[in-house]
């Protein structure tokens, strides 16, 4: 067993063919499965979501990323190794859902933010924010949202069994 462990590379797993394509996950973590449900008038009902989002975004705060070397926009930052560095991810990219302008991520306004994260398979962990602007006509109704990684031939999003492979589906219900 010990010998076996010694044969392993500390940096790269021997086989990576089990996760050729990343899965998508959403934040905040819904309480029940993948259904968000809260009431604008009741802060307690979304308190948890906000907390969760804040906690998730903590590592992305500017002071946490100050050691990360910059990358230029629009250009592929190719690295040769053996030491790899990550690019900074300014929270501002998330715009209204960054939490910087709106610490409540739009929940009290009925415009909840949901972050969709692509699983890290190696070093990438792209993040996309979804804000769902509900108006009074939508209150109390369940809205199903499906996010897919599209347009990339090597990223699967149609697996029969894995509902999170390159896609994620969640439901949101906002009560007044």
């Amino acid at each position, binding site marked *: *067993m010990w010998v*076996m*462990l010694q044969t*392993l590379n500390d*940096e*790269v*797993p*021997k*086989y*990576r063919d*089990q*996760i050729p394509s*990343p*899965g*998508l*996950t959403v934040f905040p*973590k*819904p309480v029940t*499965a*993948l259904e968000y449900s809260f009431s604008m008038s009741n802060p307690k009902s979304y308190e948890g979501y906000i907390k969760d989002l804040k906690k998730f975004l903590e590592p992305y705060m500017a002071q946490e990323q100050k050691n990360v070397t910059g990358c230029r926009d629009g250009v592929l930052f190719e690295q040769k190794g053996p030491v790899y560095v990550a690019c900074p991810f300014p929270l501002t990219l998330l715009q209204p859902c960054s939490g910087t302008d709106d610490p409540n991520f739009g929940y009290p306004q009925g415009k909840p933010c949901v972050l969709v*994260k692509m*699983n*890290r*398979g*190696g070093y990438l*962990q792209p993040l996309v924010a979804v804000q769902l602007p509900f108006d009074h006509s939508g209150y109390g109704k369940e809205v199903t949202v499906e996010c897919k990684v599209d347009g990339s031939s090597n990223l699967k999003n149609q*697996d029969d*069994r*894995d*509902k*999170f*492979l390159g896609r*994620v589906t969640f439901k949101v219900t906002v009560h007044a």
Partner: protein
Amino acid sequence: MGFGRKRGSVSPHEPKPSPKSRRGTKTSNKKKTKQKKKKDMEELKKEVVMDDHKLTLEELSAKYSVDLTMGHSPEKAKEILLRDGPNTLTPPPTTPEWVKFCKQLFGGFSLLLWTGAILCFLAYGIQVHFGQKPAKDNMYLGLVLAFVVIITGCFSYSQEAKSSRIMESFKNMVPQQALVIRGGEKIQINAHEVVVGDLVDVKGGDRIPADLRIISSRGCKVDNSSLTGESEPQSRSPEFTHENPLETKNICFFSTNCVEGTARGVVIATGDLTVMGRIASLTSGLAVGQTPIAAEIEHFIHLITMVAVFLGVSFFLLAILLGYTWLEAIIFLIGIIVANVPEGLLATVTVCLTLTAKRMARKNCLVKNLEAVETLGSTSTICSDKTGTLTQNRMTVSHLWFDKTVYQADTTEEHSGKLFGKGSDTWFVLARIAALCNQADFKAHQETVPIAKRVTTGDASESALLKFIEQFHSSVKEMREKNPKVAEIPFNSTNKYQLSIHLQEDSSQTHVLMMKGAPERILDFCSSFLLDGQEYPMDDEMRKDFQNAYLELGGLGERVLGFCFLNLPSHFSKGFPFNTDEINFPVDNLCFVGLISMIDPPRAAVPDAVSKCRDAGIKVIMVTGDHPITAKAIARGVGIISEGSETVEDIATRLNISVSQVSARSAKAIVVHGSQLKEMSSKQLDKILQNHKEIVFARTSPQQKLLIVEGCQRLGAIVAVTGDGVNDSPALKKADIGIAMGISGSDVSKQAADMILLDDNFASIVTGVEEGRLIFDNLKKSIAYTLTSNIPEITPFLLFIILGIPLPLGTITILCIDLGTDMVPAISLAYEPAESDIMKRQPRNAKIDNLVNHRLISMAYGQIGMIQAVAGFFTYFVILAENGFRPSELLGIRLRWDDLFLNDLEDNYGQQWTFEQRKVVEFTCHTAFFVTIVVVQWSDLIICKTRRNSIFQQGLFRNKILLFGILEETLLAAFLSYCPGMDVALRMYPLKLNWWLCSIPYSIFIFTYDETRRFFIRHYPGGWVERETYY
């Protein structure tokens, strides 16, 4: 009713207890019937008590209030019929087919699987009830278990479908019609209307309609062989000749055959009360014990259940301690117990037994009851019937005495065609008498059949003479044509001789009178004797020689006949009206020629078979209805009484002291007469069975045969009984294994038996013993092999619970092993040749030598199984580590790992896994664990080939089926892993080649480990290793 009253009087609510108190009677009736049944059985086991044969005709007439010439009036007969019921045998309560089927479904091993299945459904039910996301595994497992039991049940049911229909064949023996005299008229009635006291006429060819006391007869002979085992027809006459009703001449028995002559008798018993009816009721009423293999399987189930419950409960407690909820802990408990059930073993055992049964059938042992396959191997005592089993059931001339010399004849089954090489003229005369003064004849169209095998008419002795002369002298037909018979007095029990007069062969137109019969009677007729063809006057010396020869031949248990002749004077020339009723010719001063003795000789293969049984530690007891002298002679002939051993009587004769002076213990052999046995208590019988190695029971009744079997069983022996007659059937049924004769056996005996020797050859039993012992050994191996993989199947679940790691092996993969890859290899062990000469060792002691003992369990579970489990976990950890999850990371990961909505579980490299991706890796691990078990089972299979020998002694390639088994399981494993679509169907995934290789070192280790263990067993007999690990 007594119970009812008693119960009633106790109850305060019933002030005046009615004897018909319903509750009371019901229970008491139940008790009573049970008691009554038991009592009846005891009653049936007793000897037939009857005094009708001792009564005079007047007493008889009074007893049955019937006129011995007119018979019953039709009205009275009707009355009695109403009172006694019809003259038929009560059929036994038949077991409906579905009950038999259910017995197959719910017996022994199946019960274990059913329990497993029910537990599975229970666990599933609990999960559903408490709203957990039910893992369907439990339900599937339950279904599969149920399926396996049902399939195996159907299989064994169809194998045993030809099960016993004892009473039916008894029914077939009931005669259809009977000729009775009622109101002075002879009328033909249905046999079941015959009543006690009826006057019945029987003639040659009839079946006796009821037990009859003969009141008049004419040359009547009956064939009692189906009842007493006596192979020759017995003459019947009104005289009371013996105390024993079975031996006296004036009783005829229900469903025996009248061979010749006529007789009239009074019915003394009908239906179930007849002697035959009693045997039938006895046979069908006997409780049949468990077969040894069934007992072994029960023992095995106990062991397995103990292990399962122990593991289950300990891990239940552990789970509670580890903070699992009660519900989870109970699910774990059930899971662990079920995981211990060897799903495939039932099928494996059944198939192994079937294979052996098939193999035995090829060797002429037809097994009716699958479990009986092994019983013969455990047998420690064989009670063998003599006639037809040990002997050829064919009277054969064995010795001749003429010219004052004893000549021996060839009695083997294949007579060598040599002429009886005697140039003596006396032989010529003797042969002529034997051929001419003989009523037997060959049936037509048998020219191509060997003489010994030809069918004849006439009684056994005459046929024996006929065949002997035909074989060793010349054509009897020609002799009879040349010497036509002109007069004849057939043999009868008063005369004890047979006489015939023939025209001389030469043209002298004179006659010769020939006579044969009981030697002492014949000698009385003679005044001269023939020596080397010359006639000498009878003298004392000749009389003495005759006596010696008669005693000598008689002492060999042979039937001796004397022969003499007289050339009639010339005035009895051709055309003389010989009158045999009022004899008008001389029948004295005959010339004595010689003696011929006959015996039903032992079968050629029997002595060898008996000695093989001896070597195998099996005691062979002869139990026969025949006379002690004959029985003893045959026993000596076949080695049941071995050469050097003596009976008490032998010792007494040798030392010239009285029998009472000889200590019974000093004699190795003993011949017990049925009448002695009758007087014995069961303790005395036990003593005989214990103290004497070589036992012959002679003149035994069917009931006594049964008592002997029970006596042996009481002493702990596993008893095999061989027999062919109806009289043997109670013993056959009671025996641990009843063996009937296929050719000569009566239908009843075949029905009562568990096994049928198709060639009637006792030697086939030896084959049966060998096969039985082999399958017992091989079943051990098979079970050891199958149980081993239980450990690598259970431990994943245990560690899943304790360490909280992702489940290393799932239910589906476990089933793939138990019902897939393990099956053929386990069955292939049934083809394994014996490790040593299994016919040289003692029969196993049913109390100590179990099929599955704790050593087998500890070897399979504790040692080999553990190594296999380690191999499996190694592969499992390798796969997970190589995919990013190091062992340390896995500990306690269970809840997060199995969380359906946690789709970004991080591994040691920071890779994030969706639930489904994790599951694919997990199922890949299952597949790899499965493949690992297959690989380590290769070496397990090879080490299970032997229990003591090295593989290199046993030969790795001798068992081709086993090699096929290895190939098959490997291909199956590869198929399951690589076949496209398996990921969807069974959730099994393709493996990388090096994951196959992970387990190879462990496989080699298992092989070396066990080779070493067996090395110690061989080289240090009785040492620690043998004591602790030899299973």
